[in-house]
Structure formats: structure tokens, C-alpha cells
């Protein structure tokens, strides 16, 4: 009887350890996280709409029904990423996520000059490189400096009502996410 009690006690202590281990391993091993789902849907440096294409499951479960969103995966080891979108919509916002889906940095149209989206994501080391000789087309961009490798940029735009939907989806369609090698 004492032995059984001992075994149960040992099991409970083990359960605590397993609990912590599993919890720590879930983010590492998950195949359902945003990065993995996006990588099934499209390639790197491609703006991908997050909404369901006519009836299917959405790529990444976002969002507000009154929002449209597009995402692009990048890898800063290849070079810097330039995200642009032109056009006027009531509200847009941009978030930069790391590989695990942590929101590293976000901003919205009020923080951008002239309300057009023009941003560059790069590492501090690349920032030094860019500062030395600023390329002409990056003049006026918002620089997001972050010490990550792989990551995701998400562009969200507000659709106040149905009449805005074509304009907002055009805004997302012509948004670009390009790799620039230094």
C-alpha cells in the first residue's frame, strides 16, 4: 500500500514536470501556428490575403469581419524587406511578427508620412549598412529595426461598409512585399 502511494506521488511530481515540458514545447513544435499555415498557402515575399477564398478555411484566423488583411513572410538573413501600399483607405495598420507569432512592432496610418504605407524591416546590422548609403527609393520609409531572422508582416485595413470593400481589397492586392539585397 505504501508502495502504491509512493508510485502515485512520484507520478504526480512527474506530471508537473511533463506539464512544464509540454507547455514549453508547444510553441516550438506546433504545426498550426501562423508561420506554418502561411507557408502552406504561399511562398516567402508574397502578400497573401488572410481571408478565406470563397468558402474555404481562412489561412490564418484573424480577424474582425470589418477588416481585410494580408500577410507576407520574410527572412532577414536574405536581405531587407520593403513593404509598400498606395491608395487611400479609412484606416490601415501594420504589424511585424517574429517566427513564433509575437508582435514585435506595430504602427498605423497616423504614424506614416502622407498616409501611404512605405516601410522597411531590417536588423540593426543591416540598418548600419543602409545608413551609410541610403538608397533613393527608401527615402521617407519607416524603418523597423528588429533583431529577428524569419518573420511575418501583416497589413490590416478597415472596411467601414460594403461600398468600401472593392477599394480596400484593391489596396491590399496592390500592396507589395519585396526583398532587397544589400
Amino acid at each position, binding site marked *: 500500500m505504501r508502495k502504491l502511494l509512493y508510485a502515485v506521488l512520484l507520478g504526480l511530481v512527474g506530471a508537473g514536470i511533463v506539464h512544464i515540458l509540454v507547455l514549453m514545447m508547444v510553441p516550438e513544435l506546433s504545426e498550426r501556428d501562423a508561420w506554418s499555415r502561411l507557408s502552406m498557402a504561399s511562398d516567402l515575399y508574397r502578400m497573401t490575403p488572410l481571408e478565406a477564398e470563397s468558402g474555404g478555411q481562412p489561412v490564418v484566423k484573424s480577424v474582425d469581419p*470589418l477588416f481585410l488583411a494580408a500577410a507576407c513572410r520574410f527572412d532577414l538573413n536574405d536581405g531587407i524587406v520593403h513593404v509598400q501600399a498606395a491608395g487611400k483607405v479609412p484606416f490601415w495598420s501594420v504589424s511585424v511578427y517574429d517566427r513564433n507569432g509575437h508582435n514585435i512592432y506595430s504602427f498605423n496610418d497616423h504614424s506614416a508620412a502622407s498616409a501611404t504605407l512605405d516601410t522597411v524591416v531590417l536588423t540593426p546590422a543591416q540598418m548600419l549598412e543602409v545608413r551609410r548609403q541610403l538608397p533613393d527609393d527608401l527615402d521617407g520609409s519607416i524603418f523597423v529595426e528588429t533583431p529577428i531572422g524569419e518573420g511575418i508582416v501583416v497589413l490590416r485595413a478597415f472596411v467601414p461598409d460594403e461600398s468600401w470593400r472593392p477599394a480596400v481589397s484593391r489596396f491590399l492586392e496592390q500592396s507589395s512585399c519585396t526583398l532587397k539585397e544589400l
Partner: protein
Amino acid sequence: MLKKALLTLIALVIAIGGGAASVWYALHVQKGAGAITIGAWTAFPDIGTPQADPYTNARVAREGVLALGRAEGLAFVAAHDSAGQPLLRECAYRIEGNLPVARFWTLYAADQSLDFIRTGKLRPAALQSYQVLRRPDNSVLVDASGSPAPGNWLITAGEGPMYFVLTFYDTPIASSTGLSGIQLPRIVRRGCNA
């Protein structure tokens, strides 16, 4: 010998089964660590940030969420009305009160997986602040029900559990200090279709 093997087996089953089950349980309860509750509404300001606790991190990874950033907004979810009863899709609710400062907000009715309810009609189960009518004191009254209502009507449909999601965009309350002392609308049940 056999007894020893049996005891080892028991210890292992409890350790692995219990450990895995407790993680599963922890990730499936709506309320977790880091939740902030105001009236009937709950928000996770730290979700998807590097400061989030391990439970929130695991939930983000499992569900593939890309959470709103601080400069974007903050979402509140209600699973209960202000009297503590679970929200049901077959019931009519009145959402009433003042809202905190934000550039705009959206309110939608969602199902269990927090996807918005498909009503099968042209009108989405969502409202936003630019289209709502306000009362003279700037407070808002929204009627959520399956049948049309005057004023601000949030259409709902179907049966089963329901959630209201209220998201504030470009708002000072998304910063950590902004959440103290804010007020959110009350949710009052008006009646149900039996």
C-alpha cells in the same frame, strides 16, 4: 517483479497522462493568466507579445493567432451577460453604456471559435462606431437580436453559445496603463426564443 513493473507503470501513466491533460485543460479554458476583466468583458493585453506568459504563448502557437499590436488595437470578448448568464444566439441582448476613447471600434457577434456569425443575409453580424447612433450623452445602445430592431441593430442568428467581441482601434487603452478605470458597456438579456 511484476508488482514493481506495475507500480512503475502507474507512476508513468499518471505523469504523462496527467501532465498532458493538465496542459490541454489549461489551454482550453477561456480565462487564462494575463486576462483583464472589466464587467462582462475580458481582454488579453499581453497576447502575442514577447512579455506574454507561457500559457498565452502556447495558445497563440496552437491556434495560429496573429494578435493585434499595441498601435493597432485591443479586443475584448464577452461570454456572459452582465448578470453572469452565458450568452446564447437564440436570445436578444441590449448592449448599453459608454465606451473608452478610440479612433473607432467594431462590435461583432461570434461563435465558439470566435469567428463571426454567418447570418446568411447581406447584413454582417457586425457594427462599427462610424455607423452607430449615439444618445445625447454620447453613450451607445445596441440591440443584438435575430429580429430587426430600431436604432443600432446587431443581427444575430442560429442557436448555441455566442460571444461578443468589441475591438478598439488606435486607442490609448491598449497601452498597459490605459486600462485602469475604463468603463465598458453592460450586456442585458432581453428575452429568448424558446
